[in-house]
């Protein structure tokens, strides 16, 4: 599961593009992560141009 720092996120949607599990969505409230789909692979975290994402570390 991904935690989004809404104060840092610029809502560019790049993380949605690279998520291999279609777990992310860009809504008018910002990025939303679908807990069921997220595999905590970290690709979105790696992509983020402004380091707005981090893992909650609740999946191994």
């Amino acid at each position: 599961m991904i935690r989004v720092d809404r104060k840092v996120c610029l809502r560019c949607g790049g993380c949605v593009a690279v998520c291999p599990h279609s777990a992310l969505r860009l809504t008018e409230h910002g990025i939303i992560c679908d807990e069921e789909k997220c595999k905590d692979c970290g690709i979105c975290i790696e992509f983020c141009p402004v380091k707005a994402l981090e893992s909650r570390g609740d999946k191994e």
Partner: protein
Amino acid sequence: MKDFIDESYDMIVVGAGPAGSAAAMTAAKAGLNVLMVEKRAEIGCPKRCGEGISENGFERMGIKKNEKWLNRKITGTNIYAPNGKSVKVLFDPTTSDNYTGWIIERKMFDKMLADMAAKSGAKILTKTEVVSLLRENEKISGVRLEFNGRQWDVRAKIVIAADGIESRIAREAGLETTSKLSEFISAVQFEMSNIDIDPDSIELYFGNEIAPGGYVWIFPKSEHRANVGIGIRKTMTSKSAIKYLNEFINSRPGLKKGSILEVNAGGVPVGGFLDSMVCDNFIVAGDAAHQVNPIHGGGIVESFLAGRMAAETAAEAIKKGDMSKEALSVYDDRWWKERGKRLKKIQKLREVVEKLSDDDLNFLAEELEGSDIVGFARAEGFGKLAKILMKRPKLILLARKLL
């Protein structure tokens, strides 16, 4: 909102960027009943763009230039090697105006394109999101919309996904459009004011310390204002794009003294072209289909052209009453023939440039003339580049990729 639109359309376009508006205006002009929906409250805002476009881009789109959204005419490019040496690429207005460029105002440009689509007869809704596709007998038959927390269904013969990098609709349709980190540029940009710039040229800075797998750009919007941005490949570094950009700006007094008027971020697909971009009753176009020039990341014109091709194909299919995958694959064939083949070749150039060390880049800056570089973004002049690279024995294998 529900009373404002019909229950069914010939075509629904998802997303009102250049790809969407081009598709909507083309289809409406061809006589189709079109609905275009945009989830943002304002079309084109915030921008995710350096706003650079070439003169001949306007010709290819068939869009007349208008002062309302033109910021500045660009007559050259300064390309900087890691050691600071620059190669000046001068666009020659005496031979052809085609090499001139412009910095536009995307927010106004995108809205103008949507306005053209509306005037052509397309219906447009903003702050309305396509949340899912509808299916009948397993075939796509429309979309589910959401506005102000309420949802309703609208049917269509064909859905065009022009929903940009954050596209989910194409994946839902069954196309694998996830971008690989190795083919997706991580970008961030400041629109800066009160900075010292060359107001008539764009500037590009290359180097593995400056921008691994990409470059820093300065695109002037006025004498003292510019989009200052960076794109990097995240498989080459663990540091974030914004950290690189801050370092770049802080190392240059002429930029450091400036102000920041806007912060933008984004992702740019540089490769990952799709063999097929259609399903029954469905087409994907623009950034959502990775239709971007992989060497500089420009996608305004590419998206527009793809959106137009998609709509032309759709209009023909609807006229014939055959919206099957086979019928729509005319779009695949046409895009690959007219754009894809060339973009794929340009992707090779990108793969080669990414592998060059700073020392190699410095060497190139000594050997290359500005006039050689002009053609690169159009897949021309690769032979000469390969020849230069081959002067360095360790680059021979790499250079062969260009031939």
